[in-house]
């Protein structure tokens, strides 16, 4: 089926964009941002597109389950990583504008 392959292709393109952001951005928080946002949508698109064409119903249900787990866990882990970067002293967590977490 061509439509699901297009969905998988869009997801792969998003993963590539996440990797380019991880390589190119010059700040740890920016790299975390690039990976978390782009690759979470990318892997969810790959899993949903794969669930349409994989053979049995159990396999597609398991791919959708993996997509649900990605949606649930990736923002939490991204938040934990960002908080660790912000609170650690030897990593530059440079904030350009107003630092709204300054008194927390």
């Amino acid at each position, binding site marked *: 089926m061509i439509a699901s392959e297009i969905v998988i292709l869009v997801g792969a393109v998003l993963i590539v964009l996440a990797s380019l952001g991880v390589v190119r951005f010059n700040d740890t928080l920016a790299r975390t941002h690039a*990976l978390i946002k782009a690759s979470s949508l990318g892997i969810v698109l790959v899993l949903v597109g794969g669930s349409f064409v*994989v053979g049995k119903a159990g396999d597609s249900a398991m791919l959708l389950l993996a997509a649900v787990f990605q949606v649930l866990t990736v923002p939490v882990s991204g938040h934990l990583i960002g908080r*660790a*970067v912000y*609170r*650690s002293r030897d990593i530059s967590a440079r904030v350009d504008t107003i630092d709204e977490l*300054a008194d927390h």
Partner: protein
Amino acid sequence: MITAIFALLVLAGVCFGYRLWIGPTVVDRVIAVDGLLVTGVAALVVEAVRTGVGAFVPVAVVASLVGFVSTSVVARYVEARDRQPLEPEGPGFASGTGRRSQR
């Protein structure tokens, strides 16, 4: 089209591996490993689509959960490592460190 998707995933893996190689902090290496895990899961799904064999599909579920656990554990480790010592050396220690003195 499957070949193009595999080529894109190889490119993503090379980029994540480069960041894993040069990453100046441990957090950069952690997010590079996380991206490598995402790339591997995507390659697994594409392989299952290409061959029609769904034997490795549960690995996608397990890898997502294990990746979350490993990332959060390393984040806790980084926070605990960089936390201030229990007994500060002298006066002015808590006020000199700025925003991280709240910990």
